[in-house]
């Protein structure tokens, strides 16, 4: 990425912004959809992320990392979304072909796990999704959310404990 493009973006050049958008929309979308697990919401939040970036362009320091800045804004929006949409009824994101859900797990067990997962507090749900389901590294998660690696580990630990308790209450003992 050239500094000139970032400088032009900071100066309000729409073509530079479009170039940045086209380069990073996939990365930002991917990060958001891993957190919210809803394609439609992820698309809207991606656009909202870039709109905030565009509105804040005058404050952007061209010496900073654009993708890191974008990811931080995306994380905040995704967390707000999860807080305002607790326990959504379904996760309409289709799994990629190479990693389907395990057919060995009974359907009702899978649904119970998904229900318990969606009922997690937003911050725990986001970290659990990124770390446990999407297999993102703790360093990447910490960087994206603007928290320490220790905080990521703590949230994963708390999420797992809550899930265990909920599933136990549901009578699930695999």
């Amino acid at each position, binding site marked *: 990425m050239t500094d000139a493009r970032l400088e032009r973006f900071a100066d309000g050049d729409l073509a530079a912004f479009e170039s940045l958008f086209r380069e990073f929309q996939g990365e930002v*979308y991917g990060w958001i959809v891993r957190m919210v697990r809803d394609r439609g919401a992820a*698309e809207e939040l991606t656009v909202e992320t870039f709109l905030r970036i565009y509105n804040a362009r005058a404050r952007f320091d061209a010496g900073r990392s654009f993708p890191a800045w974008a990811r931080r804004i995306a994380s905040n929006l995704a967390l707000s979304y999860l807080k305002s949409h607790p326990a959504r009824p379904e996760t309409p994101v289709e*799994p990629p072909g190479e990693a389907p859900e395990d057919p060995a797990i009974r359907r009702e067990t*899978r649904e119970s796990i998904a229900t318990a997962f969606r009922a997690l507090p937003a911050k725990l749900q986001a970290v659990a999704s990124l770390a446990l*389901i999407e297999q993102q590294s703790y360093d990447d998660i910490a960087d994206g959310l603007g928290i320490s690696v220790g905080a990521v580990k703590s949230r994963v630990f708390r999420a797992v404990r809550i899930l265990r308790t909920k599933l136990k209450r549901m009578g699930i003992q695999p």
Partner: protein
Amino acid sequence: MNDDRMKELLRRAIAPVDVEPKRDLWYDMRRRIDERTLRLTWLDWALLVATLTFCAAFPESILPLLYHL
């Protein structure tokens, strides 16, 4: 059930999402930017020109006009 078993169960029960966007979002982006842009109609321009003409013809009216804004 221990923590490791719980993690494994979660991974097996909920599949990773498809992280590739299905469409180009630039057009949505462009629409959102355009919505923010102030759009002046011909009537806005006509009112602006009329006001400026009035102020130029009657400069003493500027202060009362500002008072009523």
